[in-house]
């Protein structure tokens, strides 16, 4: 099977999934029992005014009609506007998504960069010093609350040591943002060749990304170690040893055979750690997607909540698609499972 055909099949599977997610998303918000009408119309609104607002929002129509309208709107990139502040939901997503993704990708990327080699090495020295240390660190990472980690880092590296800039956004307050290309100040600064922006954006990134990486690395170490141990225990490794292959060749073989499950796991981490990213983003005042979504939930801002959930769902679907493609390219056996 070619990659093209594989992709088409996967994408076809994704469509019903997305419709289903949209449906759940729609229903969950409707049946949550929260009514935004009063919120929008204000505390002094009369019954007539309330009815007008309901009609304006389409809330007086039957549910299935509302759903069709909702799907139609999604397909035309119309995610509506916030009922609280009238801002376009789609615009806010474009504004805030890169912020969360930046934290997520650098953080999980760094976590993987540390976690995978540590996990593989720990497996190689099973029960040795290094393994014990790795297991301890992983456990430590697991048991550290994210918000506490973030606050302690700010306290130590900004307040006491003054090595890091204040945790106030993604760039120094004195600086103008570079023209938006990717939405990441670091990358946009590089593209615009504004070195002071790059430097400031980088300085702002260090603490939150490190916090994110620590949280991400703990499960990656654990999982990479378990996967590599499993591969090491397989018969083909023993038969490679029986054939006198060198330690380096066998190490490469173990790494290669661990790659697929490890990549899959890191991908799932990417989607699983969005919540963590929201916490960190909040502590460092980044104003990303998580902060925005949580606020909307508290305010019963349906349109924003729907946009938020849909974005997360789409992101997960995309991540899993990329994982599938990676596995397809890495695994000669993939065509059998496809």
């Amino acid at each position, binding site marked *: 099977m070619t990659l093209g055909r594989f992709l088409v099949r996967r994408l076809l599977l994704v469509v019903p999934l997305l419709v289903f997610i949209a449906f759940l998303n729609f229903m969950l918000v409707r049946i949550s029992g929260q009514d935004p009408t009063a919120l929008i119309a204000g505390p002094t609104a009369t019954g007539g005014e309330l009815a007008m607002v309901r009609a304006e929002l389409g809330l007086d129509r039957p549910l299935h009609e509302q759903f069709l309208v909702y799907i139609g709107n999604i397909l035309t990139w119309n995610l509506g506007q916030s009922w609280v502040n009238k801002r376009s939901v789609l615009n806010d997503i474009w504004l805030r998504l890169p912020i969360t993704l930046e934290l997520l990708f650098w953080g999980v990327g760094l976590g993987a960069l540390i976690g995978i080699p540590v996990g593989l090495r720990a497996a190689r020295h099973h029960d040795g010093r290094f393994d014990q240390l790795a297991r301890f660190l992983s456990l430590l990472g697991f048991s550290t609350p994210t918000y506490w980690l973030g606050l302690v880092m700010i306290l130590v590296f900004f307040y006491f040591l003054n090595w890091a800039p204040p945790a106030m956004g993604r760039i120094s307050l004195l600086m103008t943002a570079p023209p938006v290309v990717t939405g990441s100040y670091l990358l946009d600064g590089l593209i615009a060749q504004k070195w002071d922006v790059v430097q400031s954006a980088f300085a702002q990134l260090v603490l939150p990304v490190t916090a994110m990486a620590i949280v991400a690395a703990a499960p990656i170490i654990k999982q990479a170690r378990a996967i590599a141990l499993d591969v090491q225990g397989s018969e083909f490794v023993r*038969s490679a040893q029986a*054939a*006198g292959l060198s*330690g380096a060749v066998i190490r490469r073989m173990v790494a290669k055979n661990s790659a697929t499950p490890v990549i899959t796991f890191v991908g799932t981490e990417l989607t699983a750690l969005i919540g963590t990213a929201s916490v960190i983003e909040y502590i460092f005042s980044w104003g990303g997607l998580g902060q925005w979504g949580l606020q909307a939930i508290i305010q019963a801002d349906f349109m924003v909540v729907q946009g938020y959930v849909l974005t997360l769902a789409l992101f997960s679907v995309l991540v899993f698609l990329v994982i599938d493609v990676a596995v397809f390219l*890495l695994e000669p056996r993939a065509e059998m499972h496809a």
Partner: protein
Amino acid sequence: MSLLVVEDLHTHFVSRDLDNRVRTAKALNSVSFALAEGEVLGLVGETGAGKSLTAFSIMGLLRPPARIVQGSVRFAGQELVGLAPEQLNAVRGARIAMVGQNPRGALDPLTRVGEQIVRVILAHQAVSREAARAAALEAMARVGIPDPARRFRSWPHELSGGMAQRVLIAMALVNRPTLLIADEPTTGLDVTVQAQILDLLRTLVREMNMAALVITHDLGVVAHYCSRMAVMFAGRIIEMGPVEAVFGTPRHPYTQALIAATPENLTLDGASPLGGRPPDLFALPPGCHYVDRCPIATEACNALPPWRSVAADHGALCHRVES
């Protein structure tokens, strides 16, 4: 001179239980045998007797918690027990090769089969990649793989069990070893394929004048294939001798029961044909391991039985065998 001398080999699994007490499973207990150049020795015994573990101990392939606690393995005069992996690698795959019981599991799933053979050649011979490739193709042809050039590029999952075993045999022989250890090389293959693989192995062992240690459940294989045989029970070799002598006049009660119980197809089929349970390796009897199942056991059997020779090269580990 003997090519391989295994002497007083003890391999134990040392682990700790939940209360952190040391538990020892004595899986191999004083295993000794020797193999001359070009000789084919059969090693039989019911499942769990320690046959594979003997092979792994010789090849330095034990994994924790298994380890050799005592004994020696000398190959061509060189002591292998305690060698560092790098030193062992000069022997494994080059002078001693092994073919296992699960051919499809023994191939690296992410490497094309031809490349795997090339890898084994390059690990032991200072030749160019092209030369290694040519040698791999030649070896594949020699073990009867049709269209080697095409098969060279196959992935392991594309091969049948029999074809995978041929690839592993090619891999084992490509560096011209002087000793081949075949650990149930036909388990899990179709009956017709079993016969083909056995014939192939026999032919190659003869042509290349290799010594071979053939581990099997199948007494028929031993009868047709080996000159000498050793019978294992609960981590001990309890009888050893020329195949005709052991089949003709088995001395140890276990061997006698074994041969009496499997007259037709001569196979042990994994389990004990005698219905008894193998003894617990964590709590072996102090004397003869067979004492619980032996019909002629006496008080004396609670002490370690001596090795009684009944002929120059035939003996058994039993109190009641007369020298």
